[in-house]
């Protein structure tokens, strides 16, 4: 009995109300702090994850396009989860982004006007625009490009190459155009269905080794620096134009990927 009375005696010195208030205060502060700092971090993380997800998706799509182009698979489909933005198909005729290829000796346009009016190759693109609109991820002309905070980078390069193993320098340029019958745009889960069409192959054996200029035009300058940096791997350049010296043979293949559904 003495123990119990001692216990009671001790408890009586503490105010339950004050303790409750202290505990409640700590809890409220904690919740407030988490809401204030934790949640935005989480949301930001979510937005990042969405963009990363889309980058991955675009690279997966690029490998599907490669299968269509280089492996001659007639049809491909890929399931995409698009969150935190919109995925859309920009078919080739509607954009202001295009490529030109010029033989500087005599200033000849090398992209055939018969298939591509004005000797301009408009690739079109598969485009993801993030919710706030500040990040673009595009599959354009066989490359995966990303625009962010005023600059752009190339996440995965197209298959262009120079072969100089023999006595002659051969430049191989592979172009991929996106075509579709309808304007598709999607958020959520979509199945992108693609089919390939017969490519156009053009090959020039130049009478003498000549400089070849490749130009990328982009009025919005969305992917300007991405292409400039890629062009730099061929020859030094400061803008989205590159001149590759002493090319003897130019081979260009123009693939067309048709989007059948999303």
């Amino acid at each position, binding site marked *: 009995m003495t123990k119990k009375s001692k216990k009671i005696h001790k408890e009586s010195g503490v105010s339950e109300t004050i303790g409750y208030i202290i505990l409640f205060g700590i809890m409220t502060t904690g919740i407030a702090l988490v809401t204030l700092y934790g949640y935005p971090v989480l949301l930001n993380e979510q937005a990042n994850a969405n963009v990363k997800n889309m980058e991955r998706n675009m690279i997966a799509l690029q490998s599907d396009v490669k299968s269509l182009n280089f*492996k001659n698979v007639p049809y491909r489909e890929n399931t995409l989860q698009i969150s935190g933005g919109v995925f859309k198909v920009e078919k080739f005729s509607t954009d202001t982004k295009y490529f030109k290829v010029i033989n500087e000796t005599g200033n000849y346009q090398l992209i055939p006007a018969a298939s591509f009016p004005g000797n301009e190759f408009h690739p079109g693109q598969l485009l993801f625009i993030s919710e706030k609109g500040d990040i673009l991820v595009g599959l354009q002309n066989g490359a995966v490009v990303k625009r962010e905070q005023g600059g752009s980078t190339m996440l995965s390069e197209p298959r262009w190459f120079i072969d100089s193993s023999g006595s002659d320098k051969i430049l191989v340029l592979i172009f991929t155009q996106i075509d579709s019958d309808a304007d598709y745009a999607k958020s959520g889960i979509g199945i992108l269905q693609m089919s390939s069409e017969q490519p156009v192959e053009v090959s020039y054996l130049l009478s003498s080794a000549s400089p070849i200029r490749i130009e990328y035009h982009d009025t919005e300058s969305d992917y300007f620096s991405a292409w400039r940096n890629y062009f730099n791997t061929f020859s030094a350049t400061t803008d989205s134009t590159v001149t590759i010296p002493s090319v003897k043979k130019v081979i260009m293949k123009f693939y067309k990927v048709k989007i059948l559904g999303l």
Partner: protein
Amino acid sequence: MVNENGVLYTIEGVAAGVLMITTAYLVVSTTVMFTPGDSHIIDMQLEQLGNDVLASMDTPIRYGDPSPLELYITDNDSSGFSNHFLLYANTAAQPGFGRIKFNSTVYYRKDADVGSYHFSDSGDIMTGREHMVNVNRRVFVKDYTNPPPPGPDDRPQSVLLEVTLWRD
């Protein structure tokens, strides 16, 4: 005092549970991504199989003979090719894989142009929406005895046999 103890225990359990589930849900929903199914594995296996089958068929079984594949193309023997191809492609030690189906085309060079003709298939109607892979084999044809019109030139040549294959 007894009552207080009890209430506290239950509330703690509920609170911990709610907290854990909410956190897990938030974390899972923000980070888990929908990854496109690993179709590449199927592609890789199917491509390897197709390449193997064509390479085996293009190996002469006896010294000095033409390969079976060369003979099928020379004679334009599409059913012979189909039987041979499907035997190699569908044999497996354990059942459980879908049957292989295919469609094949021969590409040949005629001067500066490239021509093609349909060669053989497994007799299945292709909807165009299958999950397909495409394999090819360069076949040396010494002499076309029965070239399909308009047809390749009559000369020893190397043609490209392309086979598109898919499973059931």
